[in-house]
């Protein structure tokens, strides 16, 4: 049995039936990381010894009987934005190169309490700012997929959770945590041929997750199946008094929702997502998804979300504004990098120049400008108002439909080096994912098929606030219809 090919759901059963041990399961993934991480650079920090110790403890618990927590012995990658007690947490920034948190984030603490084993901290765009995982201070991540007949060209895994997506796609971990501010779970999931969900804002605690844009940041799972995402979100989600935006509402049975019938479900197709210049293969995948959902018993409804086209521009005011405020804490005094200076201001300026990469500096400067005296109303306040209009678009649509279906990204994965000259061109990768982030509603990417060059294309299901269940149900139906069994060229058993 190829242990690295199992789903989490299958491994849960196999571990309990003692068909293999947690030590074997974790060991297979640790060995795969040792073989492939030098090439893919999916992990910034590999924690093999800690993982194997945890696996041995998991085996002791599993030997004790039926009461083992749900994720006992399941090897996961953790985006290096979640603080992990005693394990270096960098946010892929030079600023936090040597930062070792003395505490555990709520999301990772929930996973650990359920028995999960962490095999390492996954690479990302610096402070989660990027769409291609090329802004990491620890080097870019290679997408394990290759264009057909072109082994040489290195493709990006998407971003910012690109390391998590690459690790899961290449079978270096069974699942991973991601965070999504404007598409950072869904877009890399689409580029790497896996599933990933950004739950409703407030569903997962943000406590202990390094902040980028606090009104948008939301943690979520990435895995190779929709059901595995449901299993992971079940553990990650839940009310937390330490996050004032955490919502005190019961977490339903997500796994059960995956098997729900779609009969009578109304699926909205937003006209505004048919953007000019969309590649025909992306449009074709979308049409195929519509047909699959119709066949599953859904009623397809054309809907309009007229403010969609302002989503990205709004995002690139709101997110940098919040980032400039959140990242003010990196001052070289209390933690993180320090570059000495003659005066306190000189110390700040030298530290922040050297500690932050170009994209992070650019966003801090943009955010500082839109919040500065005289420009606040023209930019930031206006953007907050447009954001409200974008949210109302979704509220209006969800009066008549249960979920929305769109493409996840306007293209399949592109090559390293493409789209790098102009920040705005890079930002356009998030055109379909940003609006749901602005509204705070849950959204999931699921692999739907392959492009002409053999690269994965994802479809996005967007749901009402706190109705992840309908999202899981629709995404599961798409997954069953797609029968996506393609695997990337670079993966654990192919070296």
């Amino acid at each position, binding site marked *: 049995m190829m242990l690295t090919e199992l789903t989490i759901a299958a491994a849960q059963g196999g571990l309990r039936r003692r068909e293999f041990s947690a030590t074997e399961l974790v060991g297979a993934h640790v060995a795969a990381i040792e073989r492939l991480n030098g090439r893919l650079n999916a992990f910034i920090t590999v924690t093999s010894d800690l993982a194997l110790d945890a696996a041995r403890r998991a085996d002791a618990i599993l030997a004790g009987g039926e009461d083992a927590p749900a994720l006992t012995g399941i090897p996961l990658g953790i985006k290096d934005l979640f603080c992990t007690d005693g394990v270096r947490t960098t946010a892929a920034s030079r600023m936090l190169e*040597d*930062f070792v*948190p*003395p505490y555990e984030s709520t999301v990772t603490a929930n996973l650990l309490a359920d028995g999960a084993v962490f095999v390492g901290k996954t690479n990302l765009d610096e402070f989660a700012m990027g769409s291609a995982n090329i802004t990491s201070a620890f080097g870019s991540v290679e997408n394990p997929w290759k264009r057909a007949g072109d082994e040489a060209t290195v493709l990006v895994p998407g971003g910012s959770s690109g390391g998590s997506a690459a690790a899961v796609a290449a079978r270096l971990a069974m699942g991973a945590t991601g965070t999504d501010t404007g598409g950072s779970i869904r877009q890399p999931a689409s580029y790497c041929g896996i599933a990933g969900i950004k739950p*409703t*804002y*407030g569903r997962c605690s943000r406590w202990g997750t390094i902040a980028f844009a606090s*009104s948008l940041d939301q943690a979520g799972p990435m895995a190779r199946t929709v059901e595995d995402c449901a299993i992971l979100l079940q553990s990650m989600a839940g009310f937390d*008094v330490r996050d*004032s*935006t*955490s*919502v*005190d509402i019961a977490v339903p049975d997500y796994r059960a929702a995956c098997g729900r019938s779609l009969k009578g479900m109304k699926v909205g197709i937003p006209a505004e997502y048919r953007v000019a210049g969309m590649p025909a293969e992306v449009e074709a995948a979308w049409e195929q998804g519509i047909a699959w959902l119709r066949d599953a018993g859904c009623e397809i409804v054309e809907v309009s979300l007229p*403010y969609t086209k*302002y989503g990205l*521009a*709004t995002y*690139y005011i709101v997110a940098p504004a919040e980032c*400039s405020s959140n990242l003010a804490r990196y*001052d*070289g*005094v*209390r*933690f*993180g990098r*320090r570059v*000495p*200076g*003659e*005066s*306190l*201001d*000189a*110390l700040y*300026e030298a530290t*922040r*120049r050297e500690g*932050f990469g170009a994209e992070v500096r*650019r966003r801090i*400067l*943009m955010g*500082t*400008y839109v919040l*500065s005296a005289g*420009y606040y109303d023209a930019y930031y*306040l*206006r*953007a*907050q*108002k*447009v*954001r*409200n*209009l974008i949210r109302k678009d979704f509220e209006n649509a969800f009066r008549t439909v249960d979920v929305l279906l769109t493409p996840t990204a306007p293209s399949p994965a592109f090559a390293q080096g493409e789209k790098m000259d*102009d*920040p*705005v061109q890079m930002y356009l990768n998030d055109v379909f994912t940003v609006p749901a982030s602005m509204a*705070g509603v849950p959204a999931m990417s699921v692999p739907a098929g392959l492009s002409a060059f053999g690269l994965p294309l994802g479809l996005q299901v967007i749901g009402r*606030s706190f109705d992840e269940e309908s999202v899981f149900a629709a995404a599961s139906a798409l997954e069953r219809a797609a029968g996506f069994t393609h695997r990337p060229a670079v993966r654990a058993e192919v070296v």
Partner: protein
Amino acid sequence: MSLDPATVRRIARLARIGIDESDLPALQRELNGILGWIEQLNEVDIDGVEPMVGTGHAALRMREDVVTDGGVRDAVLSNAPDAAGPYYTVPKVVE
């Protein structure tokens, strides 16, 4: 609205990010590119629209006024780039 070099310098100063004169042309070009692109929001009619400051699902909560955390000085100081005993250090700010 277009940023001149003096404005870029002023923003960098506000953000406490050191920049060299040689950085200015590229920064000015990139920031102006982004600003030019977000100007499209000016065409949106926002009369009477409330600003959205959050999703509004979480209610602010009251709790007992008791200590729930703390007493972990050494853990707090464990990542200080430079500490002297129980203190963070900074360059001299008062002559």
